[in-house]
């Protein structure tokens, strides 16, 4: 079974702190994604990566950056956390054959005080 893990289930940070969210997948997937999920807004794509060291902006990249140094690991970075970045963050990876279904991690609920 594909497994996507995220470093923390819950995280509380203070405004202005630098925040790292880590995501690891164990199925050698090339494409990985970071979403944020907010009530009434659904899933919104922040960034994605289609290969090591490659990244593309999604729909809401402002205030975020990403890093993909190894194929299995995709990190989301909040350079200076703000209260409006309080949200559920979901990482996903995708098979590039067959159904192209996205496999999601369990999510990190981030609260910025």
């Amino acid at each position, binding site marked *: 079974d594909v497994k996507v893990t995220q470093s923390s289930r819950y995280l509380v940070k203070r405004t202005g702190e630098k925040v790292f969210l880590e995501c690891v997948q164990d199925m050698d997937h090339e*494409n990985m*994604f970071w979403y944020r999920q907010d009530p*009434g*807004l*659904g*899933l919104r*794509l922040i960034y*994605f990566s*289609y290969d090591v060291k490659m990244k593309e902006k*999604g*729909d809401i990249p402002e205030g975020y950056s990403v890093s993909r140094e190894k194929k299995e690991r995709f990190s989301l970075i909040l350079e200076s956390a703000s209260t409006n970045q309080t949200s559920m963050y*979901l990482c996903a990876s*995708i098979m*590039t054959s067959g*159904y*192209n*279904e*996205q*496999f*999601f*991690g*369990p*999510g990190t609920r981030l609260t910025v005080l």
Partner: protein
Amino acid sequence: GQQVMQIPQYQHVQEGEDFTTYCNSSTTLSNIQWYKQRPGGHPVFLIQLVKSGEVKKQKRLTFQFGEAKKNSSLHITATQTTDVGTYFCAGPHTGAGSYQLTFGKGTKLSVIP
């Protein structure tokens, strides 16, 4: 940009009643995917539809893809409490090799025992 709209946003049903959620895209889709997110969980892939007019069934769930490949529906017959959750449709971005998905905002289903 591409938009995927989903209605209704919320649906409360008595256990045993049927439920339907509808998905409409602003552009023609090569395929459409459906995901389910249980309360406190992460989205899990249910199915992908590819062909115009396609109908697929999974036990009490029936998925349809419209003839014009711009709309889709998910119908649950005789809902059970295990059906509770948020159902998302998602369509791929256009462009060769693109594995990005645009998600609808989801329909949150509550089932009253």
